[in-house]
């Protein structure tokens, strides 16, 4: 697998797609840079939300520069979507498989997504009009591709923050609250069959 490949993102108005790049392996420096890019925009957006008494996103405090130290461990890989010189979304996966929990793939290897986040300027709740749309879709597609390359059949799993549950419920199976997860979040899994539905290749 090369270190990056082209992919396309959607702009909010019209049907146009713009060229972007999926970067397969980010360095610690990349994560620090992403944090430096994202933090001021996020803080400004939070200030506006606070002033207008609107709820904050649940991940408002995330700091990817702190997650960078996880890349010292052998088991983590971070990927990102880069467009117009900035990271538009980031995802960290565990390259050591977890066991599938869905009945149809019980015990089979599943790629686990440790973290996934959109850049603050791509969230309507923070930015009003997003700069790019579909960053999460591209990251899920990358996770599926990685899972397939690992021999995990494209299967992926993750714990969703409550505000994101409806999004993941569209494509993955909600396996309920997970007592093992430190924050008691719901666990979602996408089977090989659901992958085919997600990408519409049957």
């Amino acid at each position, binding site marked *: 697998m090369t270190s990056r490949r082209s992919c396309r993102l959607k702009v909010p108005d019209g049907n146009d797609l713009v060229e972007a790049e999926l970067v397969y392996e980010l360095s610690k420096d990349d994560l620090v840079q992403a944090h430096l890019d994202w933090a001021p925009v996020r803080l400004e957006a939070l200030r506006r939300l606070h002033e207008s008494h609107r709820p904050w996103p649940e991940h408002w405090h995330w700091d990817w520069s702190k997650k960078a130290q996880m890349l010292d461990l052998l088991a983590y890989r971070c990927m990102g979507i880069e467009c117009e010189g900035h990271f538009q979304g980031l995802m960290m996966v565990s390259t050591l498989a977890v066991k599938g929990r869905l009945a149809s793939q019980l015990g089979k290897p599943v790629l686990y997504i440790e973290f996934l986040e959109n850049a603050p300027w791509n969230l309507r709740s923070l930015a009003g009009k997003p700069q790019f749309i579909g960053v999460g879709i591209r990251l899920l*597609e990358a996770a599926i591709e990685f899972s397939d390359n690992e021999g995990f059949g494209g299967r992926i799993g993750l714990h969703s923050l409550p505000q994101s549950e409806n999004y993941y419920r569209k494509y993955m199976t909600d396996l309920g609250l997970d007592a093992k997860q430190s924050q008691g979040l719901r666990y979602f899994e996408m089977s090989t069959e659901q992958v085919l539905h997600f990408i519409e290749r049957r």
Partner: protein
Amino acid sequence: MKAIRMSDEVFRKRAMEEDGCMISAIGLEPLFTKSEETSRHAAEPAKEPIRFAFSTLISYRRRALRLTMEDLAEKARIELDELLRIEEDANYIPEPRTVHQLANHLKLPIPQLLVLSGNVTSANAELTEAAVRFAARSRAVEKLNREQSDALNEFVKVLIKQKVETEKK
């Protein structure tokens, strides 16, 4: 699976479905700090890289021989669940029979693998050092690149030349 990327048309549709959604996902605690078992082992730092070297060695060697997890589990006559746990959980100590089966099918020396897997102890400092070095150089990725293959080959060479005086646990 044939093609895992979506067409532009499907992407446009999915992107519209995403518009306005939060997409944040958060994981379990980082490796080595997520289980009580791990906390117990925190007092024994030297064992972590050795156990991690074992997990990674099995994973790398399997991939170097171009075997899927299912292939290896079937050939070695071990449960896929157990193989998955071996590669996933550095704190898991497999049964000696499993280690024997893996050693035979991955063409690795049994005594050394028993040490790395935590089934027996050894005071062989060179083996420990090689395991720590291997763990530090390794990264679990989809295909082994040159550097990772070199790290694997170097570690396997050290394993093979070691004479391990072991003590069963």
